[in-house]
C-alpha cells in the first residue's frame, strides 16, 4: 500500500506539512497586523518608532517567510525522489505537493511583505 521508501528518511508529519504550506501566509498576516499596530501607536501616542519598527518587522517576517520556503524546499527534495508513479495512496506524492506549494507560497508572500514594508520608506507617517 505505501510507496517503497527509504527507511532512513524521517517521516514528515501532518503538522509540519501544514506549517510549510500555510506558514508564509500566516507570517504575512502577522506582519500586516504588527505594522498596522505600530503605525497606529505612533500616530496616537508620543512614541515615534514606527518607521524603524516596520522596517525591522519587514526584514524579520520576510526572512521568516523565506525560511519556511527553505524548509519546504528541503522537504520537497527529500520526497520527490521517493514518489511512486501510479501508487494509489502514495504518501510521498501529496507530501511533495504540499512542500512545493509551501515554497511557492513563501516566494509570493515574502514579496507581499516586502512590498508592504516599503511604505515607510516613501510615505509620510501620520499626516
Amino acid at each position, binding site marked *: 500500500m505505501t510507496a517503497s521508501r527509504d527507511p532512513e528518511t524521517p517521516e514528515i508529519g501532518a503538522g509540519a506539512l501544514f506549517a510549510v504550506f500555510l506558514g508564509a501566509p500566516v507570517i504575512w498576516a502577522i506582519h500586516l497586523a504588527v505594522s498596522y499596530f505600530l503605525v497606529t501607536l505612533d*500616530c496616537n501616542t508620543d512614541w515615534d518608532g514606527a518607521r524603524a519598527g516596520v522596517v525591522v518587522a519587514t526584514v524579520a517576517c520576510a526572512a521568516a517567510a523565506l525560511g519556511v520556503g527553505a524548509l519546504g524546499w528541503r522537504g520537497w527534495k527529500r520526497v520527490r525522489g521517493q514518489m511512486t508513479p501510479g501508487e494509489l*495512496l502514495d504518501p510521498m506524492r501529496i*507530501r511533495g505537493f504540499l512542500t512545493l*506549494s509551501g515554497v511557492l507560497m513563501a516566494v509570493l508572500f515574502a514579496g*507581499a511583505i516586502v512590498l*508592504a514594508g*516599503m511604505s515607510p520608506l516613501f*510615505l*509620510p507617517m501620520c499626516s
Partner: protein
Amino acid sequence: MAASVAPPVPPETLEQFKQTWVTPRGFLGIFRTVNNISIGHWYMATGFAFFVLGGLLGGLMRIQLGTPENTFLDAETYNQIFTMHGTTMMFLFVIPFTEAIANYLLPLVLGTRDLPFPRLTALSYWSYLFGGLFLYSSFFFGVAPDGGWFAYVPLSNVEYSPGINMDFWDIGLSVAEIAAIGAAAEMIVSIVRMRAPGMTLNRLPLFAWAMLVTAVMIIFAFTPLSVGTAMLEFDRKGLTAFFKPEAGGKPLLWQHIFWVFGHPEVYIMFIPAAGIVSHVVQTFARRPLVSYTLMVLSIVATGFLSFGLWVHHMFTTGIAPVAMGFFTAASLAIAIPNGIQIFGWIATLWAGRPVWRTSLLFVLGFLVIFTIGGITGVMLGVVPFDLQAHDTYFLVAHFHYVLIGGVVFPLFAGLYYWLPKITGRLLNERLGRWNFGLMFVFFNVAFFPMHISGLLGMPRRVYTYPAGLGLELPNLISTIGALGFATGIFLFVVNVIWSFRRGEPAGSNPWEADSLEWSETSPPPRAQFVRLPVVRSRHPLWEQTDLLADEPRLARQLEELHAQPASWRGSLVVSVIDARPIAIAHIPGPSYAPFTMAVAFLALFAGLLVESTAVIAGGTVLVAVALLLWFWPQQSESRAMAERPANAGPERLPLAMGGALANGWWGTLVFLTVLATALTAMIASYFYLGGGPGTAAQAPRPLAAPVLATILPIVAAAAAGIAVRGTRNRRQGVVRAGFAGTWLFSAAGLWLGIQSYPWSTLQPELSAYASSVLGMLGFQWLVSVILLVVVTMAMLWALRAPEDRRGQAVADNAGLIAAFTAVSGVLVFLVVYVTPLLA
C-alpha cells in the same frame, strides 16, 4: 471512461439501503428532510428567487435614474430599494446560492453519501429562508432597511435612522449569518474528512478546494460581522455606546468591522465562482487544467490576501498614509494570484480543443468582464485615484464588473454545466446562446457607461441628479442596458422551463467530464454511491478504467460499505492529507429539530425587533425543545448500529464515535474557531475604543470575585476532563459526577461573573469603554451558557443511553467546550482586569 459497474448486492439489502436514505414524504416530511439533495434543490430555488427579487429592485433603481430629476421613486423609497438591492444580492443570493450548489454537489464531487451534519444543512436552509423572509417582510410595513447594505454609523444609529428599518436589517442579517456560518462548518468538515479513498489533497477537485477556502473565509469574515451587527443593534436599543462619539465610541470602528468582513466577502463570492470556472474550462477544453498546483495556490493565497485589503475601502477616512500603503500593497499583490488563475484558464483553453457550449461561453464572458473589473479594482487600490473616484459611479461600475462578471457569469456557467446533472435533462443550447449573448452585451451596455458617469462626478447612492451635467446619456444607456440584461435572465428561466418539459435526457455524463459527480445517474439518487468510489487520479473519469479498489486491503474495507450500512446512514471517513479510510461515520437522519430551531431563532429575533419579552421567552423555550429533539438519544438507531456486518476481516474500520475520529469533534473545533474569532473581534474593539494600558481608573473593581469567576471554569474544565475519561473507560459513576461538577462549577462561575460586574458605576449605555468591557464579559457568560447546555446534553446521554457509543462524541464535545470556556475566561480576565494596570 465509463464508471465502474458494481458487482451485484442482494436486492433486499439494496432496497433496505435505499429506504434508509429516502427523503420523508408528504407535507410534514418537508420539515423533517435533511438530505443534501432535497435541501440543495430548495436552497438553489430560494437563492434564485432572491436573485430575481434583488434584480427587480435594481431595475426599479435604473428606471428612477434613467432620466434626470425623475419622480418615479421618492428619496425614502429609493433608499430602501438600494439598501435591499445590495443586501439581497450580497447576503441572500450570491453566498447562499454558492452554498446551495456546494450542499448539493460536494458529496457527489467528493464521492461520499451526504454532508457530515445533515441537520445543520437543514438548519442553515431554514434560517436562511426565514432570515430572508423576515427582511423582505419589512416592505409590507413600509419600513424596509434604508441605511445602505453597509449600514454605516452614525447614519444607521437610532438618532439618524429612528424607525425599525435598520433593526430589520440588523436582525434579519443575523439569522442569515447563522445560515452562512453553519453551512461553512458543514463544508469544512465534509471536504477535510469525507472524501473518496485516494482523493488526496493534491487530487481534490478545484471546486472542492475553492469551497474549502471559502468556508474558512466565511468563518473568519462573517463572525466579526455577527459581532458588529450585535453591537450596532445593542447601540440602537440604547443598551450600549460602541459607536456613539459622545460616549467615547467611534463610528470608524463600525467601518473597520464591516470591511474586515466586506472585502473578504468579495472573494467569498469570487472563489467558488473560480472553482466552477475551473471545472467548466477543463471539461470543455477537453484537457486537464494547466498547472493544477498553481491554481490551488492561487485560491489559497487569494483567501489570505483578501483579509489584508479592508482598509482600501476606508482610504478617505483619515487613515495614516503609511498604513494606507500597507493595504495598497496587498491590493496590488492580490492581482498576482488572480492573474495566475486567469492565465491558467486561458492557457487551458489555448492548449485544449474547446467545445463552445453555452457554459463555456459564460466563462468567456466572465474572463472578459472580470478582467476589466479587476483592472479598475487595481486602479481603485491606488490611493490618489481612489480619493478621486471614491463614492462615485465609477466604483459602482467597478464592483458590478467584479460581481456580475466574476460571480454571476460563472454561476450561470455552473448552472448550464450542472443543471443537466440536477434535473436529468439538457437545456436548450440555442436559447442558452441567446441567454448568454443578451446578458453579455447588455451587461456592458448597462455598466460600462457608469465608469463615465462616475468620472463625470456622479455620486453613488443618490436618488436623482440635475439635468445639464452631462449625466443624462450615460444614465439612459445604463437603464436600457439593465432592462436588456433582465431579458437575458428571463430567457434563462424560459430555458429551464423548456428543459423540464422538452429537454433531452442528460444521461449520467453528458459533457464527458472528469469528476465523480458524473459517475452517478442524472438526477442522482438520494442514496448516493451505493459502492463508494476509489480515486487514483485528479481526473478519475478520464484516467481510470474503473472506480473500484485495486488493493486487497482497501477493497475489503470498502466492501463493508457496499450498500452498507443498510439500516442506518453511514459513510466513510478518511485521513485529512492522504485520504486513507479510517472510520465509518454515522450520518444523522430526518428530524424536526432543524426546522424547530430555525423557527425558534426567528421568534427570538422577532421578539428582539418588537421588544416583546413574551415572544423572546417563547423563542427560548422553543430553542430548548429543538435542542432536545436534536440531541435525544434514539436507541433504535443505536441497536441498528450495533449490528455491523460480519463479513469484515481484521482490518475492519471502526465507527467514528469519539475523539478526532468523529466528525462532531471536528465540527466542534470549527465552532470554537467561530467563538475565538468573535472574542478576537471584541478584544480588538476594546483596544480600538481606548481600553487597555492606562485605564486603571475606569477598570472594574474589586478583583476578588472576578478572580474566582475565572478559576471556576478552569475547575469545571478539569471536571469535564474526568467525565470524558470516564466515558472512555465506561465508568458511568465517574461520568455523571464529572459532568455534574462541570455544570455546577460553570453555573457558579457564571453567576459570580454576572454578580461581580459593577452595574451601577460602569454603565454600558453611557460609556463605550464600559460597552466593550461588558461585551467581552458578556461573551464569556454566553460561552458559559453554551457549555451548560452541552453538558446538560452529555448528562442526558449518560443517563438515558449509557451504553450507546455515540454518547462519547457528545461528551468529547462538552470537554472541548469546557476547555475553551476556561481559556477564554482567563483571556477575558487578563484583558479586562490586568491590561489596564499596565503603564
